[in-house]
């Protein structure tokens, strides 16, 4: 199952690359973890389990350079289009993978999906996603590259997010993932980088991150951020 799932993910990426879509979108969410292996090549890094959800971030839905129909592109792999929620967010579903598109929320926010006609899909607009776009890395996969959020941004974003989650299990999963990633980054020698990125984000977000870590009594990470356990 795991191998099939990874193979399917690679095939999806391959097709998106061939269609020229990968230039305009980035992979976010839990599926970034296996692709961070290259970044952590010099240190021990063992990503935790992953779910079937694979999220793609469309930073600029209005500035897509290619015209393609993603559901049609993936149809023969067995992906079916389903609409979730009352607003009809598109999900491309397969027993091994569920693809969803996200976009950074603009202004005061809205509930309606962001239409992306050039890709034949729509996206869920969410807060804090710009933080993932601000600092990215490119990872080589089978001769093409995929864009991922920098692991530091990914981990800090999860720390901001987990406290906003209504679903407790998801919140716990976010906290555990960010903890695992930050520890791997510290081991790799990226403590200074974590601190500098942490210092660059708005004060409210920083407070939220610190509060979350204090609740979890995560002293190692708090000390890297220059904070103390209350």
């Amino acid at each position, binding site marked *: 199952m795991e191998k099939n799932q990874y193979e399917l993910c690679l095939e999806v990426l391959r097709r998106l690359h061939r269609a020229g879509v990968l230039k305009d979108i980035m992979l976010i969410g839990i599926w970034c973890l296996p692709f961070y292996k290259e970044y952590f090549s010099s240190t021990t890094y063992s990503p935790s389990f992953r779910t*079937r959800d694979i999220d793609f971030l469309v930073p600029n839905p209005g500035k897509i350079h290619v015209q393609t129909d993603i559901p049609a592109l993936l149809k*023969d792999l067995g992906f079916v289009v*389903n609409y979730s929620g009352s607003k009809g967010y598109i999900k491309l*579903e397969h027993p091994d993978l569920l693809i969803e598109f996200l976009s950074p929320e603009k202004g005061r926010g809205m509930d309606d999906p962001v239409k992306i006609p050039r890709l034949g899909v729509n996206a869920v607009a969410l807060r804090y996603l710009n933080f993932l776009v601000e600092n990215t890395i490119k990872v080589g996969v089978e001769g093409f590259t995929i864009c991922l959020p920098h692991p530091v941004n990914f981990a800090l974003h999860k720390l901001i997010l987990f406290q906003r989650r209504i*679903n*407790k299990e998801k919140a716990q999963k976010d906290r555990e993932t960010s903890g695992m990633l930050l520890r791997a980054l510290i081991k790799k020698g990226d403590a200074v980088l974590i601190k500098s990125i942490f210092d660059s984000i708005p004060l409210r977000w920083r407070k939220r991150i610190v509060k979350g870590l204090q609740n979890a009594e995560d002293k190692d990470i708090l000390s890297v951020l220059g904070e103390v356990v209350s």
Partner: protein
Amino acid sequence: MGVIKGVLREELANSLRMQSGYERELKKLPKGSLVKKCIKGRHYYYLLMREGGKVKFVYKGKVSGEEIKKYKETKEIRARYRNLLSKVKKQVKFLRSSLRGKESV
């Protein structure tokens, strides 16, 4: 443990939605598959389908290359969807039993 149970619950909801998705897509596909019969040295196309539990051949007359291709693709898609639907059903069964199937989830 709570995390795993929460993930399983979410995955079950996903699988159930997916199951109805595949069932819907299968219904949308045109019925039957195209077969070529050789009668007295000449080739004729028939649409093979089931109606009321009986196998039925419907004469199609002249069929263009494009139509043949379309039926072939449909047949492949149907086979794939059926395969995936059976996979999803197995997932639903597994997830339900993992979450102690007697409870309503």
